[in-house]
């Protein structure tokens, strides 16, 4: 994670009432939507722990929906997020759930369209900071403090080398790289010091055999849902 600065102390500028239960929830929705990167027809939210217990009084439900609609944590439309989701024909459901040994403020988000289901699990750690801990069953640790790329691919030799060389050619420094593996599928979380352009992103997408690639604020003019 990046170092603490004055923007964390006099900020975030946010919609209340709670940086962990409201602002953090918006960020979780934002980042989950960027990872999903499509238009869902239906979204199910499974709220765990303190999220499950106190979501109504903290507007966590509104915040999560506003998040997947791409609103910022200081957007005054958050209060009316359900109406906005309805207007965009996105069906929203909330459930209370036990997600196991995870942070008390954790949510499992299931996006669905006609083709498939897509799962993102994330926690709000306090002060508006978040951590995505699971993408489609792959264990990850994604804070979204940096421009970040998420890659899932059949595990084989040379991928890390290939990815680093593409980043080096693009002139973007890698801040950190984490790879986890499960059933021969690898998930890479790549944090960058700067953004890459669309051409580099497209080149990356076409030059490696990928199941999945997405950007969390890593491509210039990147759009959410």
């Amino acid at each position, binding site marked *: 994670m990046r170092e603490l600065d004055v923007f964390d*102390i*006099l*900020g975030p500028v*946010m*919609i*209340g009432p709670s940086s962990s239960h409201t602002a953090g929830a918006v960020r979780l929705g934002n980042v989950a939507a960027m990872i999903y990167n499509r238009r869902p027809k239906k979204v199910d939210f499974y709220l765990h722990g303190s999220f499950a217990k106190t979501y109504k009084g*903290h507007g966590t439900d509104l915040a999560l929906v506003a998040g997947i609609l791409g609103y910022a944590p200081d957007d*005054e439309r958050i209060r009316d997020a359900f109406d906005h989701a309805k207007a965009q024909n996105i069906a929203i459901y909330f459930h209370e759930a036990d997600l196991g040994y995870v942070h008390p403020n954790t949510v499992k988000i299931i996006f669905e369209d006609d083709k498939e289901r897509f799962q993102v699990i994330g926690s709000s750690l*306090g*002060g508006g900071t978040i951590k995505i801990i699971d993408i489609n069953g792959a264990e990850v640790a994604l804070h979204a403090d940096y421009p970040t790329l998420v890659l899932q691919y059949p595990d084989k030799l040379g991928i890390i080398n290939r990815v680093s060389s593409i980043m080096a050619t693009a002139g973007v420094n890698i801040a950190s790289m984490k790879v986890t593996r499960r059933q021969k599928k690898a998930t890479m979380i790549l944090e960058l010091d700067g953004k890459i352009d669309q051409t580099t992103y497209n080149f990356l997408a076409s030059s490696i055999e990928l199941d999945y690639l997405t950007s969390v604020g890593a491509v210039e003019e990147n759009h959410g849902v």
Partner: protein
Amino acid sequence: MVYKAVDLLEECKEKQCKISAIMRIEEAEAASITPEELDAWMLDVLEIMDQSSTQGLEEEIFSISGMTGGFAKKVWEHRKSPSLSGEFGLSSMAKALSTSEVNASMGRIVAAPTAGASGILPAALSGAKEKFNLSNEELVPGLYTAGAIGKIIALSATISGADGGCQAECGSASAMAAAALVELMGGAPEQSFHAASFALIHIMGLICDPIAGFVEFPCSLRNASGVMNAYISADLAMAGVESLVPFDEVVEAMYRVGKLLPESLRETALGGIAASDTAKALEEKYL
């Protein structure tokens, strides 16, 4: 990352400058922007603080849970009546309550350092603005100094109620505000740290016991008392009273006290007034 008051004081002495001047240059550099751009950002922050601290004075604002609201307007209307706190004190408390109510209604606030304690610094700065005829531009150094205090606490202790109780949230906000007020009144950097120490000492051990877990009651009241705590702490320091224990050690003490607090007294709504029969009934009704 080590960030201590003692180092900051040393740097102030070396460069013959205020806390705010160091913070301004360092933070702009860290964010890769110019100090002027950071000033502009601070002015935007002040603008949002102005709005949140005045919105609830003329209109009653209710929380989204529906449990609380309208305190700010009541206190504002009472400000000219005969009182012990006086018009200035009542106005300041009303402004702190206003931001707390805007926060609880899902309105826009600046977390300073957290959303739960967001009423204290805006009310204190607004008080200084009124009392000493300052412009928003002249308040900006106060924000930098407040930021420095908050940063020291966040890095060597905690600013989270779930970690350290209310002392870590409203206590930190009061300490930030007290140090800022001293600088705005022309006090020396040492005096800012004495004031910040007093603010933390005054409420050391304060628990976090929100009814039903909502950021409402007693949170808004503790924002109101928090701004008064900042005022008396700043005035004590300006009078020349000195803290026997330096700020870094006061922060460490606050952190240790926070760690000693059982979980029931740290934002879980299981202890303090949140555990009272009446609070349980309210929880039943509004949760």
